[in-house]
Each structure stands twice: as C-alpha cells, then as structure tokens.
C-alpha cells in the first residue's frame, strides 16, 4: 500500500483525466535494430500515429510469423517443426497443451536443449484458440488483443508475455541448427510497447489474391526447399 500512496496523493494534487486506466507508456530508450528487426526509433518519422502503430505491428509480424513462433501456435492439433514441417513424431496438443497421455512433450523435450532437440522447462503448445498459423497479420493482430483468444490477457499482460515470457524467449535461443526469430526479445518487447502506446492499431486485411487465413490441415503444409527431411514413418 505504501508504494502506491504517494502516487495516489500526487494524482489528487495534480488531477488526472485518465485515472484508473493503464495507458502503455512510449518507449523512452529505444534499443538499436539488430538481426533483421528494426528499432522503435526507425518508426519515429511516421507522423500519423495510426500509420506508425500499424508499421510497428508489421515489424512485430516478422517475429510473430517466424517458424520459431508459429510452430507452436499451429492451426491444427499437431505442432510444426524446423521451417514449418509437420512435427515428427506425430504428437498432438492434448488437453492442456503438453501433449497426449502416454506421449507428453516432455518425453523428448527436456529443460534445456539436447543436441538437435529443443528444450525449455515450460515447453508446450499454445491453446487452439491462440493458433495463428497461416493467418494474416491483420487477423493475428485482432486475435492477440482479444482476451477470449489470448488466454484472458489484458494489454499489459500481453506485453509482458511478449517481452519476458520464458517460453517466448526460446524463439531467440533455439538449438544451433534452427534459425532464431529476428532481433531479440527485448527489442520485440519494445516494438510491442510502442505499438500499444500508439493505439495498438492493426494492419488492414489483405485483399485480392493475397493469401488469407488458412483453414488447411497440417498435412497441407509444404516443407521448405532445402530443409532436411525427417523420418516419415508413423506408429499408426
């Protein structure tokens, strides 16, 4: 209580138009761009705030649509791996995102990487309502702000998830043979905060022949050329 008392007294003294609301603060000390992800500062010259917000989200999209993120937000019940190939063996999300009875994720994924097998103490799949494999950035943008489809998170919880969640952090620290997500988690977190501070606007839905939300099953996902192929036998 003592932490908040001076703040509350200050609010009473100076007045406050938005009392009770937690408006995200703009990023004060932008990190430099790195590893394919631009800095918040690179968007400062976009005068229109909504356009700036959209541009920031599109930059975040480089991370959100990267295989290190999408592979565990699959549209079906089976995760993806490497560049977006169906996971081998044929594991499934299960009731709690930790795999099926008899074949939990932890059967293979330990608390840290082991050779080519990624590891993390929190290793699991995102729930089905958080799936965004194949969806447009516009759709993802709306989805991640919807508490019905983001695990009940308000904006602050969403921002904290993106900037500090231990399993999200895996995206930038995979085993050596896997490409990390662009930039760093800290930089991604700053882009997200600045996007929120500028109104959390979403890109428009793509039109015309541009690829729309995918309803395809995981069996229709094509492996990328040049990726090492995994064994295709299944125990079924």
């Amino acid at each position, binding site marked *: 209580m003592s932490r908040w008392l001076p703040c509350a007294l200050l609010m009473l003294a100076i007045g406050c138009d938005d009392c009770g609301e937690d408006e995200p603060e703009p990023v004060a000390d932008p990190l430099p761009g790195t590893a394919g992800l631009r800095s918040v500062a690179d968007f400062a010259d976009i005068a229109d705030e909504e356009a700036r917000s959209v541009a920031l989200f599109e930059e975040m999209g480089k991370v959100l649509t990267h295989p290190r993120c999408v592979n565990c937000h699959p549209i079906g019940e089976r995760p993806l791996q490497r560049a977006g190939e169906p996971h*081998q*063996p*044929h*594991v*499934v999300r*299960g009731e709690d995102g930790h795999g*099926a*009875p*008899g*074949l*939990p994720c*932890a*059967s*293979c994924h*330990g*608390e*840290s990487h*082991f*050779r*080519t*097998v990624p590891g993390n103490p929190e290793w699991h799949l995102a729930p089905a309502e958080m799936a965004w494999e194949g969806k447009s950035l516009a759709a993802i943008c709306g989805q991640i702000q919807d508490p019905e489809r983001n695990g009940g998170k308000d904006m602050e919880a969403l921002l904290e998830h993106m900037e500090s969640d231990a399993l999200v952090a895996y995206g930038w620290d995979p085993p050596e043979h896997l490409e990390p997500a662009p930039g760093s988690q800290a930089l991604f977190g700053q882009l997200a905060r600045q996007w929120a501070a500028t109104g959390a606007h979403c890109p428009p839905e793509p039109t015309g022949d541009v690829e729309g939300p995918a309803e395809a099953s995981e069996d229709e996902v094509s492996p990328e050329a040049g990726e090492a192929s*995994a*064994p295709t*036998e*299944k*125990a*079924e």
Partner: protein
Amino acid sequence: MSITLTINGEEHEVEAAPDTPLLWVLRDHLGLTGTKYGCGVAQCGACTVHVDGVPRRACVAPVGSVAGKAVVTIEGVSGPEADAVREAWTELAVPQCGYCQSGQIMSAVALLKSRPSPSDDDIDRGMAGNICRCATYVRIRRAIKQAAGEGER
C-alpha cells in the same frame, strides 16, 4: 564426474559427463540392455524409460538431468498396469522381432496409467512416438485394450 542415479529403485554411482545420454549409461555403464538404441534422435521410441513416472526418450535425456529422479526401465517396471501389459503382451504374442517392444511396453504402461480405458484415438496419440519395423501395431492395440480390461479374450 560422479553422478548418483536411482534406477529401478536402486542407487547407482556412475562416472559420466552430465551430457552423456541416459541410454548410454543404462546400457554401457550399468548393463541394463533391455532399453534399446533405435535412432538416437527421439524419432522411434525404442529407448523409452520412465523418469518420475513420465515417459522419456533415454537417447535424448542427458544423464545429468535425471540425477535425483526415479528412473524406471523395462527391467524394473512394475505395478498393476505393467502386470496387465505383460500378461496381454504374452497372451497375444505381440512381439515379432522384438527390438522395439521394450519401448512399446514402457509407453503402453505410461498411457494406461494416465488413461486406464484408452480409446482408439488415445492409443493412436499415446503410441505415435513408438515405431515398429515389423508393423505389430494391430497386436499392440489389441494388447493395450486387453490390458485395460476391454479386449477380446
């Protein structure tokens, strides 16, 4: 370095680097060769053991990660599910060449512990990580159902 392991209820002191696969330690250090080496990359399930009751591919489990935990191998698996699986496997003569069967059995026991009456889908999903080159899958399914008390006798 010296690592203390609890395997099938017994403590063992082994000299191994912590990143040595558990499978190597089981087979080469302790002589527990019932757990098989199949692919070495967690793609076939032949090396399945239980760690604190959870199925684990021993070929990708660094031995240092299981220190202080209860490791159970095919040599020591026990309990009502294991007894039922052993009986069903024998009665239906499930194995053909047999190489994958210790892994199949360890996964089947783990499945039955969390799904005492597994559906066909439960069996498909729980056993999907265990490959059998003799394709004994039909007998494996029947044996799991029989072990669950639901099979034809």
